[in-house]
């Protein structure tokens, strides 16, 4: 493959072009700096002791032997931590009157999941710290374990929280229209119970923190592997009782976040407490083993849903319950993701009658938190699986039944029935685009040929919506978020005419620095090479609401750059007009050169503008013009921007083993204005790879004792290049009406679409047997069971009819 370097320096418009990532040379050369690469003078290293029990009372903790080990600086338990730090915060409260199960960063009296932190050691290095962990003696009194959802909901279930009536943290029902009447009058009702196993984002750089608590100034310097440095600073202030302005959070390169690093973790607090007690900077890196227990788990849900339709395939109602199988305490985002499944379970379809419930249930598992997709992949399972089951029942084409239920482009903005109003879309066009590409790629011939050879090849579909650009701050507050959703950007041109963009967003692999430079270059009319993007430091970068999550960096940060850029450009033109003795209205700026329109000989460069604004102002900076060249913009969107796409998969099932191989995959997609098609493709591919892994391979499996059985890469199976099919991406651009620049988010598209997609392809491959995939991941033994059960019932039906 030949990669042609785009001619960056001579380009006058960057938006929409596949500019190569400015981030890459450093990372590819192995010269990135991740938090574990950071060394602070006098730094010591910590490690965390984790509970081997899923549910137990802590009777005693003896740390004396650990303290006596040479090289150990300090050992703390829950009591030590609770003396100086509050409980771990929760910021999402979508369910009114929800019981909020909070804990300290170290367990104080009781553990509720395997891997819960119970003590921490800080020592000269991590080796000694881990040696010391083995010397801590914890006496547990085991309690009955609530290992899964059924165990948690059983009438006589042991309780995780003694003062609760049961293990349900909260429940919320949304109704829209007249669901009961709709179901009573429907021609067809299809219903299923779907399960998605536990999984997590599994960033290849695990989490990590360095905290330096300076006793003299009472300031806290933090280096943190996070997607949300501003949020982390606010929450550290809340938990530690230190004013926000005395806390600085820096984020070096991030080796993946995937939502997992949006959440705020106990290790940040543990490192802070250890630093305060020892007077030393403390590094606490989550190693790979820790990560399986201590990084937010997600996805774990059961979804019991039914869809009502008329005989012509019109959906008239949807009702059901989304059970969030939460852990032993609430994570930062509480029951947010299972709630979001309910908000998106109608997907792209007009469904006039809804009765949908989220029920958040506590179990003795690790806490539930953010993972790319944030509940929407499970919403997608509900609408995409049910509509295909309905198509089968009604004998309808799978594309036709979808097309029939889309809102038409002129019906936007379209209220989904629960919370979201989709801003814009051409859903049928997108579906048609995907279908035409299936023909072009010859999938139908490949399928027919394979079937003629006796192989089971199927084509799967998934149409998804991705609510992005989270979100209007006041609406987020209204639905229960104790945080905002705006984004702030500072755009500064310096004294020699070069530009720095300061953003509160975090670059975790998406290419944020590249697209921000593209947008700033276009909005100012300067070369991209003149732009530097700075992120990851709360002292120098502005505040962003939320953090880098909810597919918001491109639409919200992008909009703020465009708006700030317009104002700064106007100022440049005013100064340029003064220098050239022209009217600002006659001025233009192209590629960093300001000239009088129609008289290209009369020009100045941004270098001279910088000089006039910062250094030699006399007769050059217009009277009344404020010195310096800086614009700040805060963009709080009036509505979210909803991306969407139609994904298709060609897959083969081995009926004798239950193994599934993925042959080819395509996605037709609309994320509004495409800033950089190469990076959008990268987002789509990465998300799809994660979803395909979740659909077939990845599962955090707990046994009946609440032990996590897949806590290493030998058993938690990430997809590799060997398992992932080729991808083909096609874009249509329907600009977001409420976002300057028309940009919609794209970070989560693949993860939303890809799970139901696999189910659809498998069902199609086995269409003669009538198999319906309802449980993910689809492992070979599970699929073989489905195949054999279908074969038995098929042969019984044959006998019955004979």
């Amino acid at each position, binding site marked *: 493959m030949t990669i042609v370097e785009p001619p960056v320096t001579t380009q006058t418009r960057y938006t929409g072009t596949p500019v190569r990532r400015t981030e890459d040379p450093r990372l590819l050369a192995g010269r990135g700096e991740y938090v574990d690469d950071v060394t602070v003078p006098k730094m010591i290293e910590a490690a965390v002791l984790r509970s081997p029990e899923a549910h137990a009372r802590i009777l005693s903790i003896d740390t004396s032997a650990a303290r006596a080990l040479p090289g150990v600086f300090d050992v703390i338990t829950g009591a030590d931590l609770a003396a100086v730090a509050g409980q771990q915060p929760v910021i999402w409260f979508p369910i009114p009157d929800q019981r909020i199960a909070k804990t300290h960063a170290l367990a104080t009296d009781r553990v509720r999941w395997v891997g819960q932190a119970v003590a921490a050691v800080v020592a000269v290095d*991590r*080796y000694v710290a*881990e*040696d010391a962990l*083995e010397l801590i003696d914890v006496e547990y009194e085991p309690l009955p374990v609530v290992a899964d959802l059924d165990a948690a909901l059983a009438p006589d279930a042991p309780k995780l929280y003694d003062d609760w009536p049961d293990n349900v943290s909260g429940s919320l029902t949304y109704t829209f229209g007249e669901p009961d009447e709709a179901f009573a009058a429907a021609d067809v009702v299809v219903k299923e119970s779907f399960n998605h196993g536990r999984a997590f984002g599994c960033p290849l750089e695990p989490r990590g923190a360095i905290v330096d608590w300076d006793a003299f100034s009472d300031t806290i310097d933090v280096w943190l592997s996070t997607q949300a440095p501003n949020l982390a600073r606010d929450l550290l202030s809340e938990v530690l009782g230190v004013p926000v302005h005395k806390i600085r959070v820096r984020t070096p390169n991030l080796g993946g976040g995937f939502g997992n690093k949006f959440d705020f973790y106990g290790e940040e607090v543990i490192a802070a407490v250890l630093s305060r007690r020892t007077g030393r900077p403390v590094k606490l890196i989550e*190693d*790979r*083993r820790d990560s399986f227990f201590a990084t937010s788990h997600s996805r774990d849900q059961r979804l019991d849903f039914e869809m009502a339709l008329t005989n012509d395939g019109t959906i008239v109602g949807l009702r059901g319950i989304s059970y969030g199988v939460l852990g032993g305490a609430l994570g930062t985002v509480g029951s947010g993701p299972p709630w979001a499944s309910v908000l998106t379970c109608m997907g792209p379809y007009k469904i006039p009658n809804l009765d949908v419930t989220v029920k958040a249930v506590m179990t003795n598992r690790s806490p539930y938190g953010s993972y790319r997709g944030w509940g929407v992949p499970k919403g997608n399972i509900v609408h995409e699986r049910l509509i295909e089951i309905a198509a089968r029942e009604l004998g309808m084409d799978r594309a036709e039944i979808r097309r029939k239920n889309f809102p038409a482009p002129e019906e936007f903005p379209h209220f989904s029935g629960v919370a979201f109003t989709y801003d814009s879309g051409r859903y049928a066009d997108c579906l048609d685009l995907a279908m035409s590409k299936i023909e072009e790629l010859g999938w139908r011939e490949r399928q027919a040929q394979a079937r003629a050879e006796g192989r089971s090849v199927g084509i799967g579909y998934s149409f998804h919506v991705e609510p992005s650009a989270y979100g209007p701050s006041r609406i987020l507050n209204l639905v229960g978020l104790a945080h905002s959703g705006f984004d702030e950007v500072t755009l500064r041109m310096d004294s020699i005419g070069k530009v720095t963009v300061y953003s509160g967003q975090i670059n975790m692999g998406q290419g944020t620095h590249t697209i921000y430079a593209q947008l700033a270059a276009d909005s100012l009319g300067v070369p991209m090479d003149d732009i530097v993007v700075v992120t990851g430091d709360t002292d120098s970068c502005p505040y962003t609401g939320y953090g880098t999550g909810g597919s918001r960096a491109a639409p919200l940060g992008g909009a703020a750059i465009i708006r700030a850029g317009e104002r700064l450009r106007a100022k440049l033109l005013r100064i340029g007009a003064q220098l050239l003795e022209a009217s600002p209205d006659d001025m233009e700026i192209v590629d960093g050169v300001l000239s009088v329109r129609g008289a290209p000989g009369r020009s100045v460069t941004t270098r001279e503008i910088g000089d006039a604004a910062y250094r030699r102002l006399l007769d050059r900076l217009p009277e009344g013009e404020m010195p310096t060249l800086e614009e700040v913009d805060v963009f709080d969107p009036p509505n979210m921007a909803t991306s969407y796409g139609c994904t298709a998969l060609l897959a083969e099932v081995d009926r*004798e*083993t239950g*193994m599934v191989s993925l042959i080819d995959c395509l996605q037709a997609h609309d994320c509004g204005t495409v800033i950089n098609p190469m990076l959008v493709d990268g987002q789509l591919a990465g998300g799809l790879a994660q979803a395909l892994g979740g659909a077939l*391979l990845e*599962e955090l*499996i707990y046994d009946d004792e609440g032990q996590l*059985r*897949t806590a*290493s890469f*030998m*058993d938690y*199976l990430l*997809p*590799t290049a*060997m*398992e992932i099919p080729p991808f083909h991406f096609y874009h249509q651009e329907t600009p977001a009406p409420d976002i300057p620049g028309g940009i919609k988010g794209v970070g989560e598209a693949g993860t939303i679409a890809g799970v139901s997609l696999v189910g659809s392809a498998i069902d199609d491959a086995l269409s003669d047997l009538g198999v319906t995939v309802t449980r993910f991941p689809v*492992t*070979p*033994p599970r699929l*073989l069971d489905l195949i054999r059960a279908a074969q038995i019932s098929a042969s019984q039906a044959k006998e019955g009819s004979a």
Partner: protein
Amino acid sequence: MKPPPVKYARAGDVAEAVALLTEHGSDAKVLAGGQSLIPLMNFRLARPSVLIDINRAAGLDGIRVENGSLVIGAMARQRDVETSDVAAGAVPLLPQVLRHVGHVTNRNRGTVGGSLAHADPAAELPALVTGLGGELLVQGPGGSRLVAAEDYFLGTFTTAMEFDEVLTGVRLPRLPAGTGVAVEELARRHGDFAIVATMAAIHLAADGTVDLVRLAASGVASVPVRLHGAEAVLAGIAPTAEAIDAAAETVAGSIKPTGDVHAPADYRRDMAGLLVRRALRTAIQRTEVAA
């Protein structure tokens, strides 16, 4: 994931390794390619007091044919064996099997002896050696001895070697020209430990009847299993589809699989039979009858 404190000693040759093992007792461990031992130490599941490094012990990495057998030194890297013409010529099953062992980077460091000494019942090399009736060369304070594979693998991670013995190599009977071989492995991903793997080597006489058949499976018991029952069904008869089915049907009775997070025992049992059938079909297709 830092290992507990451990002492390190380098052995210049096998005799020195044996002496060090004798000196340090059963808490000492021999370090070869480290592809299993080091992760186990990082998990603190293995905590040897001393590592005896034999990476620089001379003369342990040979790959040669000797008296009709292929002899591979314990320290031969798996990748070197995989790409060795000598190994492929004598035992064409070897490169095929090795391609399923981890990934190339693992095989660059991983050694043949390391895998055989580690004795993971899901691993491919122990099954190959067992299936082909190989012998293990073991050296201890009292000298060297040869142990037949089926006497060597005693259980999961357990072999017939004494604590003061070092595995120095393996001897595999050379397969006659025209032998068809096949490996069938069912793994969740390429390079993972097998859920079940089967291997077949089959040779046909001029009249089309089977005059040599070797069948083995991994992932189906606490030790790698040679499928004698299935071999007996095929020996001396024409390998028809019915004969293959009859051989495959004996497999379930010769194995004792256990379940884990990836597959229950019943699934493994079923798959062992299926994969024996598939391996036999492919191996038979690949046989060449001498003209």
